[in-house]
């Protein structure tokens, strides 16, 4: 008997659920408008003014956008199940807790990836400007998917922790933001001053934004891929433990 029994059925249901209510469409519209604004704005990406065949202005702001938008996707995944009681129905089907949890995670990740793919016009835009670095573009999308997955795993834990979606959202945003802020040069410098070089080094290695930037430059470093894999897996496993404790509460 597989530990992932029932994952496919849960995945299908969850993915369809994004499009059986306005939530999915609203999310996609907000994401496209916000990412477009950040890319084009004179105060942020300035992609038109820079006139370079480079998608860095687009990718640079995506982690910050994800800090707000991904917890909005994650918040309902378990909170709603617990609030409406469907968690009891779901977990008394021949579905393992791992299968249900990963089915929901993969459905959310597929939805976020789909939203990202809908930004394809921006690729055409840079291709018109010159000869872009396709490796960097691929790396940027890969880094974005991995970041979305990491924040989704964070948000899912808080969704499993509380029946209140608003609380799950706020905690998801706060913790995701913390992992970005910890990697900022200013934060690292301050940590170095207060706690010494070792702590600065440690947090630099754990900096999500560092690994994001490495990958989005087209450098597929194994260290960065491992970081995202372990970060996401750690939050997923913790979330499963939390759900196992809270499901009947």
């Amino acid at each position, binding site marked *: *008997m597989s530990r992932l*029994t*029932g994952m*496919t*059925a*849960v995945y*299908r*249901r969850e993915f*369809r*659920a994004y499009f*059986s*209510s306005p939530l999915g469409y609203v999310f996609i519209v907000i994401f496209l408008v916000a990412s477009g604004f950040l890319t084009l704005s004179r105060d942020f990406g300035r992609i038109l003014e820079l006139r370079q065949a480079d998608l860095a202005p687009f990718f640079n702001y995506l982690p910050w956008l994800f800090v707000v938008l991904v917890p909005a996707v994650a918040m309902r995944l378990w909170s709603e199940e617990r609030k*409406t*009681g*469907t968690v*009891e*129905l779901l*977990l*008394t*089907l*021949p*579905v*393992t807790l791992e299968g249900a949890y990963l089915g929901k995670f993969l459905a959310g990740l597929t939805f976020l990836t789909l939203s990202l793919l809908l930004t394809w016009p921006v690729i055409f835009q840079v291709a018109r400007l010159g000869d872009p670095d396709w490796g960097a573009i691929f790396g940027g999308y890969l880094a974005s998917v991995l970041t979305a997955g990491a924040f989704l795993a964070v948000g899912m834990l808080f969704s499993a922790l509380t029946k209140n979606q608003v609380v799950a959202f706020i905690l998801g945003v706060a913790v995701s933001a913390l992992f970005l802020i910890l990697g900022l040069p200013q934060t690292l410098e301050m940590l170095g001053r207060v706690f010494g070089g070792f702590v600065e080094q440690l947090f630099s290695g754990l900096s999500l934004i560092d690994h994001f930037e490495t990958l989005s430059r087209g450098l597929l470093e194994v260290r960065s891929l491992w970081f995202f894999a372990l970060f996401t897996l750690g939050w997923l496993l913790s979330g499963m433990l939390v759900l196992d404790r809270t*499901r*009947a509460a």
Partner: protein
Amino acid sequence: MNAERGSSSDVLIDVNGLVKHYGPIRAVDGVSFEVHRGDILGFLGPNGAGKTTVMKMITGFLEPDQGSVAVAGFDMSTDGLEGKRKIGYLPETAPAYGEMTVDGFLDFIGQARDVLDVEAAIERVVEATGLERVIHQTIETLSKGFQRRVGLAQALIHDPEILILDEPTDGLDPNQKAVVQELISNLSSEKGIVLSTHILDEAERICNRAMIISQGKILVDSTPEALIARAPSHNVIRISLPADRVAEISERVESAAWCDRVERFADTMLDVYPAGGENRLDELMSLLGGTELHGVHLQEGRLDELFREITKGIAA
């Protein structure tokens, strides 16, 4: 405890020494019983008695602190998935994904339960539960009665050997209740059904076995008929007669050897309590031969009386 049980191969649910705490509260306290093929077991008890907690442990949603549950021979702590395949479960509030259509929801449950021909299964349960005219509607737009029926349909979609129904008729109007009760009664005798209810009339009507639970303990396990026979009003004879004869007849009946006591009420009515709760209608009629009576009624007894009697002082 219940007599006349089937062979061990007919044991569909074997509950042994279940204990469950919620913080300092011992919600279930050493509950043990078996459910056999053909049983429709009514789980009766006041609110907070532990009925739902026991059901949640049978279905594998909750793990017991002590004790074990075997479903169709599968130990739920080690072979939980196999056990879950054998169970159809309707949780207390019949939860469902409100944004889904009825057929979409049933399709999901069928897929999750690895039903081979999901379309045929949907057709079968939709017909059995009378959901034809709402099949393409989203669940959140349905009345409470239809939502219950959707819950029943999902519990039946894999034609399970075991059905666990937590208050299947709660909140339904009388017509809807009758439909659901008939549906449960008509389910194959090859199944073992456990249903919780605090509607005692329902247990009388559809169950062939009744269990009273209070403060996490089983107090009685018997047939509804046997329970009714223990009710205080079982075989009590109510007679209605002219007001000027009440005192004299009351005295005459009370002096009979088979009579335990007579209670007078409403000036023209007497309740005659036979000793030992036996049927003494014939004796009463020969004793009152020739007396003008306005009416005589032999009471069968009511499960709710016994329920109140047993749980009196126990339930908060």
